[in-house]
């Protein structure tokens, strides 16, 4: 375990010193601080819009750190042959994969945590100073839960990035495929709802079967998205939450298993 932690620590340090990481952190920080002012310009419940912008900003931050850095740092290791100094030691390749995953996960959680604190302070400020007739209650606990599930979703996406990096040396290819998986995964639930509605009756059985296959194959990221529950203070279904948690963990573990299997057989030229 010490070797895995060691790789994780170096990955974390490497990621945190990437200039682009700092740039995105500042950009999202400003977006979060400005979310209240942006909400002021909109029609509707100012606090709800603030929460919407804030949680979307956090997702954006996590998405960038998870996908860009997971594909970029592994490709850099391969391209610059730094990996020779790691895998030539008495370690197994799966330990390298797991170390990278843990380092990148800590990095993403750290970035989202910093963003979340900025978001909470901003939200609290606008909640206390809101000049509206009826100031709604904020579901702070549900925001915390949304934060936890957002981290889980990002860890799953890091595993997606690592999976693609396990067989391609191109950061761009790995990033593009991972981003594609993100868009498919984020919209699976919506497409499923459309297919189950009246509109779905007009869709051919072949297309429906194809969609069913995709539904089981791709990660259903909507299950880990609790933004609506937090913003609109919707009731929680503990059973569903538990299943979603298990789903996220199992999918991540499976991706890491496949990545390790492929990487173990990969020639490091």
């Amino acid at each position, binding site marked *: 375990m010490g070797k895995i932690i060691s790789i994780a620590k*170096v990955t974390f340090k*490497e990621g945190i010193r990437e200039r682009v990481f700092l740039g995105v952190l500042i950009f999202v920080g400003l977006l979060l601080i400005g979310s209240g002012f942006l909400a002021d310009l909109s029609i509707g419940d100012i606090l709800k819009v603030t929460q919407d912008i804030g949680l979307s900003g956090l997702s954006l931050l996590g998405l960038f750190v998870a996908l860009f850095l997971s594909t970029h740092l592994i490709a850099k290791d391969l391209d610059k042959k730094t990996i*020779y100094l790691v895998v030539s030691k008495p370690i197994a390749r799966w330990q390298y994969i797991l170390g990278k995953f843990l380092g990148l996960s800590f990095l993403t959680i750290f970035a989202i945590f910093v963003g979340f604190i900025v978001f909470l302070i901003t939200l609290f400020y606008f909640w206390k100073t809101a000049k509206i007739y009826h100031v709604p209650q904020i579901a702070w606990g549900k925001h915390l839960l949304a934060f936890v599930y957002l981290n889980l979703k990002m860890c799953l996406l890091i595993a997606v990035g690592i999976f693609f990096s396990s067989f391609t040396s191109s950061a761009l290819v790995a990033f593009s495929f991972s981003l594609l998986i993100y868009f498919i995964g984020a919209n699976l639930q919506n497409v499923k709802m459309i297919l189950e509605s009246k509109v779905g009756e007009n869709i051919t059985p072949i297309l429906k079967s194809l969609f069913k296959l995709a539904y089981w194959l791709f990660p259903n990221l909507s299950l880990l998205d609790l933004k609506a529950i937090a913003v609109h203070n919707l009731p929680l279904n503990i059973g569903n939450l538990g299943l979603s948690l298990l789903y996220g963990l199992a999918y991540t573990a499976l991706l890491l298993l496949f990545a390790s299997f492929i990487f173990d057989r990969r*020639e490091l*030229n």
Partner: protein
Amino acid sequence: MSAISLKEIYKTYKKGLRQRILAVKNLSFAVEQGEIFGFVGPNGAGKSTTIKILMGLIFADRGEARLFDLPCSHPKARAKVGFVPEQPALYDHLTGAEFLHFAGELYGLSKKNFMEQALKLLEKVGLKEAMNLKLRHYSKGMQQRLVIAQALITNPELIIMDEPLSGLDPIGRMEIMDLIKSLKEEGKTIFFSSHILHDVETVCDRVALIVRGELKFLGKPDNIEETFREEIQKWAKS
């Protein structure tokens, strides 16, 4: 038990969809413990390919490669081996000391065992003053010396070096050669590839000459320059 043993190794690379290039062909030899073994050949002869097979970075199509009698693809086989790859990039956000610490941890060393050894090594390779400097500020020669230091962090029995002298200025080369000589005095087994015959002749007990993936000579390095010239001429004619 040999430190390195290669038996009938074959390795091909894919080029495009159909073409295959034979990089190593029927390569067999053994390196005994305590000897300094030079692995020479022109560029593209298959030296780096053989070393990568030994370090488990790539896999032979056929044959058997072993380190201390263990299959080289097994992580345990690399426990007694220090490896110096050809000009790798380092994690430039780390300092020299942090990088050695990282290497030590990958060998499973505890911090207590590591610190003393790391300081000794940094002194040995002349980097003690620069130990707290970020690696991005290191010169090429300093980086190469640090790569050698990380290979020695566990005091390994066998050190495998891929072109350790390439890209270095004459002073840098001299320093690395002195280091190899001092390791020889300590009784280490050293396997290093080079295309600078003079260096190999000075320091090695035995050499293997490889041309186009085939072993052409194995023995004492006394007439290696002449043998090398003959083999290259034969190759050019063919």
